[in-house]
């Protein structure tokens, strides 16, 4: 859904939310506290999602340094009076390159076309996360 912030609307049925979670003493990261808090508010789990006001929301722990950086540098924007954080378009591209699925390739194309990217920021990001080769393969 974040890509829709920068590009034309496209079909999606779920909403992914990246979260930073503290590891337990065992070293494991658990989404249970989030699920429990939502359950007390009456939201039910459905497969890998929690349905919040009819929207299936999937919470994903920040799983590597790229996603952690993307969260740290996310933009705070206003959505009808509610503050929300959206990943920068350059980070969305980098995450799509890392994921490497067909639909990620389509998102990269859309964001490249419509995302009003900062080319220097993107180049630095791709270099630091060793994604330049993939970028070339997908865009040349």
């Amino acid at each position: 859904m974040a890509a829709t912030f920068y590009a034309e609307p496209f079909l999606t049925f779920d909403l992914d939310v990246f979260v930073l979670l503290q590891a337990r003493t065992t070293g494991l990261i658990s989404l249970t506290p989030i699920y429990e808090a939502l359950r007390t508010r009456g939201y039910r789990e459905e497969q890998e999602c929690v349905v919040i006001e009819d929207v299936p929301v999937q919470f994903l722990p920040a799983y590597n340094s790229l996603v952690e950086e993307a969260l740290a540098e996310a933009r705070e924007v206003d959505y009808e009076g509610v503050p929300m954080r959206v990943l920068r378009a350059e980070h969305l591209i980098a995450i799509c390159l890392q994921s490497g699925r067909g639909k990620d390739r389509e998102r990269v194309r859309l964001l490249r076309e419509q995302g009003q990217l900062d080319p220097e920021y993107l180049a630095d990001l791709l270099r630091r996360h060793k994604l330049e080769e993939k970028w070339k393969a997908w865009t040349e």
Partner: protein
Amino acid sequence: MESLDGMTDELARVFAAKEQRRKALARLPFPEKVRAVIKLQEMAATILRARGKSVKPWSASGTGL
């Protein structure tokens, strides 16, 4: 006049207009894009259900719209 690949001037104008529309859609405020996504979900849901896939479009009220 037709080009080698069969593209007529009329078709070229249609494709150019489509491209302009896509750029205009990309510039919409985010809440309007969310409304557009919900419309897309409603359109797709009928087709997906016919294929046996269970999907539920978001509700505009649920998204604060």
